[in-house]
C-alpha cells in the first residue's frame, strides 16, 4: 500500500492567524486509490478544516503551520493558484453538507454541470450535453432533459445532493471529498444518497474521503477510519477493529453514546388515553393569486393516535410524511380542518387554558427556539407567567430549581442564549417546557441538531425527567436510533397517514410494512461487547 498511495498527509498542523492557537495538530494519514476512507469527529474537532487544507481552501483566518500534503507525489501546499485550480474539480472533487446552498440558485442545473466540463475538458458542446445527460441518468434523476433547464429550488434536498454528486463525478476525479454529505437529509434519503455515492465512485475507481460525525454511517461504507478530537487524531485503524476493540477513551465514549435500545416498560393501557387525536385532517391552503386560489394540499389525511399516561410515543417517518404537522396540530400551532383532539377525556377546546398549561413543546432548533434578547432565567420564568397560584418569588425559585434539574447551575441564569452551546440551549428549552410540570410534552426532533455525545446526554436527561415527572410524550424524529432508545410505542407515518404502529420491540424486530423496513435499514442494530466496542448489524430491506 505504501508504494501506491493517492494522498499522503504528514504532520499537518493548522493555526489561527494572530493568536497562534492550533486548531489541527500534526495529523497524518494516507488514502489509497479507490479506497473509501473515513474521518469521524464532533463539531469543533477540526475535521472540516483538515480536509479544506487538502485542497488549499482554508478560511482566511486559518494558516498552515507545518507539515505536508502530497497528492500523487506533488506537494499541494506549495502549488501556485493555477495548479490548484487544475487540481480542484478535475483531480479532487468536493461534495459539501448543505445541498440547499452548494448549488447556485440563479443558474440552471445544465449550466452548473457544464461549468466544470468547460473548465477542465476539451469536450465539444454536444459531447458535454451527452455526458451530462448520462450522468444525471446515473444519479437517478427521472427526467434528465428537463433537469437541464430547471433551477435548484425545483428539487428536494436529496435530489440536489444527487445533482451535486453528478456535477462532481462528471469530471471523474481520482479523489472525492464528501464533508457530511447526507447530514441535512432524513435517514432513508441519506442511505440512498450514500449507496449511490459508493456505487458511482466504485465504478469510476474514485477514492472517497468521507467526513462525518455519524460513526455508524461512516463505518458502514469505509475500510479504514480515523477519529479526531480537538484537532488531533486520537485513534486510527481498520473499521471493524476500531469498532470492536476501541483503544482510546474518546472512541469508547463515541461508541457508548450511540443510542441503544432502552428497557421495555410496562405502560397501563387500560385507562383512557391522556391525549387522543381522532381522524385529524389538515389542509394547507394553496397559493393564492389575484383571481383564484391554488389547490389545497392535504398534509394529514385523517390520523388517529392515542398517548397514554406516562407513555412515550415516537412518531417516525421521512420528510414530508406529516409527522411534524401532526405534532404542531396537537400543540395547537396548526388548525385542523377536520377531526378532534381530546385531552384527559374531554375535547381540547372545552378547556383551552387547562390544555395550554398542560401541553408543552420542545422544538428542534435550539438556535431559533430561544428569544436571543432574554436571559436564561427570564426564558424559564416566562413559561411560568400564566401558571396560577404562584407568586413572583415562588416562580423565580421554581425556575432556578428547574434550571438546576437540567444541569444548568445558578451561574447560567443571567446569561444569554448566544453564550451557550447547542446542547446547553436545548437543556434550556427542555427546562422551559417542564417548568410548568405539564402532563404532556411534544418533542419535535429535539436532538437532531446536536453532536453525538451531547445527544446522548440530552437523551439521558430527557429520560430522567420523564421518569421523575411521568409526563406523556409525543416524540417526533426521523432518527430511528434515538427512537429505539426512548420510545415505548412507535407510530410510522407516510404521506400523511399512519401506516404502522405497535410497541417498540415489535416494530424494530418484526416490522410488517415495506416502508418501515426501509426506515429500519438505514440504522444499524448494535451489539455491545465487554471491551467497550460494538458490532454493527445492518437490517436488510427485504
Amino acid at each position: 500500500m505504501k508504494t501506491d498511495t493517492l494522498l499522503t498527509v504528514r504532520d499537518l498542523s493548522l493555526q489561527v492567524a494572530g493568536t497562534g492557537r492550533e486548531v489541527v495538530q500534526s495529523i497524518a494519514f494516507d488514502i489509497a486509490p479507490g479506497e473509501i476512507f473515513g474521518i469521524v469527529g464532533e463539531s469543533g474537532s477540526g475535521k472540516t478544516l483538515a480536509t479544506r487544507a487538502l485542497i488549499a481552501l482554508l478560511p482566511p483566518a486559518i494558516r498552515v503551520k507545518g507539515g505536508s500534503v502530497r497528492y500523487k507525489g506533488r506537494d499541494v501546499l506549495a502549488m501556485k493558484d493555477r495548479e490548484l485550480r487544475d487540481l480542484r474539480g478535475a483531480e479532487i472533487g468536493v461534495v459539501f453538507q448543505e445541498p440547499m446552498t452548494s448549488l447556485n440558485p440563479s443558474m440552471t442545473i445544465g449550466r452548473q454541470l457544464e461549468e466544470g466540463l468547460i473548465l477542465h475538458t476539451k469536450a465539444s458542446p454536444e459531447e458535454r450535453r451527452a455526458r451530462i445527460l448520462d450522468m444525471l441518468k446515473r444519479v437517478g434523476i427521472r427526467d434528465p432533459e428537463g433537469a437541464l433547464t430547471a433551477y435548484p429550488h425545483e428539487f428536494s434536498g436529496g435530489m440536489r445532493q444527487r445533482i451535486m454528486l453528478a456535477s462532481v463525478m462528471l469530471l471523474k476525479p481520482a479523489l472525492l471529498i464528501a464533508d457530511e454529505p447526507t447530514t441535512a437529509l432524513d435517514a432513508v434519503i441519506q442511505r440512498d444518497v450514500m449507496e449511490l455515492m459508493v456505487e458511482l465512485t466504485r465504478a469510476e475507481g474514485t477514492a472517497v474521503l468521507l467526513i462525518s460525525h455519524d460513526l455508524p454511517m461512516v463505518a458502514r461504507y469505509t475500510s479504514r477510519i480515523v477519529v479526531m478530537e480537538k484537532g488531533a487524531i486520537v485513534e486510527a485503524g481498520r473499521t471493524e477493529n476500531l469498532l470492536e476493540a476501541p483503544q482510546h477513551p474518546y472512541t469508547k465514549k463515541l461508541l457508548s453514546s450511540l443510542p441503544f435500545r432502552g428497557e421495555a416498560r410496562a405502560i397501563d393501557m387500560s385507562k383512557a388515553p391522556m391525549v387522543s387525536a381522532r381522524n385529524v385532517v389538515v389542509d394547507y391552503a394553496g397559493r393564492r393569486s389575484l383571481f383564484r386560489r391554488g389547490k389545497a394540499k392535504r398534509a394529514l389525511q385523517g390520523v388517529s393516535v392515542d398517548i397514554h399516561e406516562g407513555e412515550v410515543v415516537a412518531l417516525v417517518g421521512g420528510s414530508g410524511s406529516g409527522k411534524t404537522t401532526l405534532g404542531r396540530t396537537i400543540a395547537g400551532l396548526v388548525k385542523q380542518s377536520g377531526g378532534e383532539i381530546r385531552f384527559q377525556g374531554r375535547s381540547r377546546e372545552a378547556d383551552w387554558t387547562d390544555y395550554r398549561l398542560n401541553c408543552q413543546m420542545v422544538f428542534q432548533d435550539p438556535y431559533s427556539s430561544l428569544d436571543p434578547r432574554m436571559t436564561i432565567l427570564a426564558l424559564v420564568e416566562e413559561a411560568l407567567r400564566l401558571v396560577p397560584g404562584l407568586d413572583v418569588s415562588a416562580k423565580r425559585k421554581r425556575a432556578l430549581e428547574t434550571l438546576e434539574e437540567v444541569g444548568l447551575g445558578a451561574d447560567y441564569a443571567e446569561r444569554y442564549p448566544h453564550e451557550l452551546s447547542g446542547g446547553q440551549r436545548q437543556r434550556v428549552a427542555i427546562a422551559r417546557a417542564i417548568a410548568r410540570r405539564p402532563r404532556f410534552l411534544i418533542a419535535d426532533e429535539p436532538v437532531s441538531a446536536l453532536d453525538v455525545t451531547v445527544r446522548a446526554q440530552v437523551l439521558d436527561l430527557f429520560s430522567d425527567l420523564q421518569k421523575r415527572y411521568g409526563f406523556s410524550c409525543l416524540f417526533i424524529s426521523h432518527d430511528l436510533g434515538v427512537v429505539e432508545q426512548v420510545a415505548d410505542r412507535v407510530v410510522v407515518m407516510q404521506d400523511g397517514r399512519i401506516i404502522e404502529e405497535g410497541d417498540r420491540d415489535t416494530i424494530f424486530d418484526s416490522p410488517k410494512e415495506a416502508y418501515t423496513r426501509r426506515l429500519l435499514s438505514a440504522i444499524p442494530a448494535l451489539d455491545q461487547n465487554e471491551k467497550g466496542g460494538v458490532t454493527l448489524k445492518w437490517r436488510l430491506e427485504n
Partner: protein
Amino acid sequence: MKKFTFNGLIGGILIAILLLSAALGLVWTPFDPMKLSFTARLAAPGADHLLGTDEFGRDVLSRLMVGARASVWIGALTVGFATICGTLIGLVSGYARGWVDGVIMAVNNALLAFPGILLALGLLAVFGANQYGIIFALGIAYTPSMARVVRGAVLSLREREFIEASRVMGNGELYTMVRHILPNCLAPITVLATSMFGWAILSESALSFLGLGVPPPAPTWGNMLAAGRPFVEQAVWLGLFPGLCIALTLLGINLLGDALRDKLDPRMRGLK
C-alpha cells in the same frame, strides 16, 4: 468591539457638545442673537465676534446656539413621531398579515413613492410654516420607511421558533408582540432612527432654504445656511459654520447610533 466604543465615544462627545450648547443658548449667549448692529456688519471671525457676524451685524455664534435648540427639537420630535407611528404600523402589518397587511402596505407604498420633501411641502401649505407644522409634515413623510423596515423585521421574526414557543406557552398575541418581537426589531429601528435624525435636520434646512421653514428672524441652522448663500464670496463663515454644525451633528448621531445598537444587542456582549 474596541473600534465601536471608540467611535461611540466620539459620537457621544459631539452630541454632548451639541446638547450643551443648545441648553446654554436658552439662558445665555455672548450677544443677543436678534440684535442688529450696523457698525459690525459682516465682521470676520475675530476676538470680538468669535464666529463673525451676518449682514445685519448679528452674532453668528449666538445665533448658532439658539438655532441648535430649534434644530435638535425639530429633529428629535420628527424622529420620535415617525418611529412611534412607523413601528406601530409595521408591527401590526407584519404580525397580522392577510388583508390588513395588504391595505396598510398599499397606502404605505403610495406614500413611499411620493418624494418626502414634496409631501412635506404640501402638508406645510396646509398646516402653515411653523415649527410644529414642520415636525408633523416631516414625521408623516418619514413614517412609511420606518413602517417598511419594521414590517420586514417582523415578517422574518414571526417564523422563528421562539415565537411559536411563546404561542405554545399560551401567551397572547399582544404580549408576544411586545415581549418577543419588538425587542428583536430594535437594531434596525435604532439604525434607521439615527439616520432619520440626520435627514430631519437636513430637510428642515432645505425647507427653510425654500422659505417654508421656521420663519425669520428666529434662527435655525437651515435658514442661517440659506441666508448665508448670497454672501459666500464676501463672508464665507455665514455658510461655513451652520454647515459644519449640521455635518458634525450628523456624524455624531450616526456614530452614537451604531454604538447604541451594539450596546442594546446582548449578542454583542462578551465579544472581544
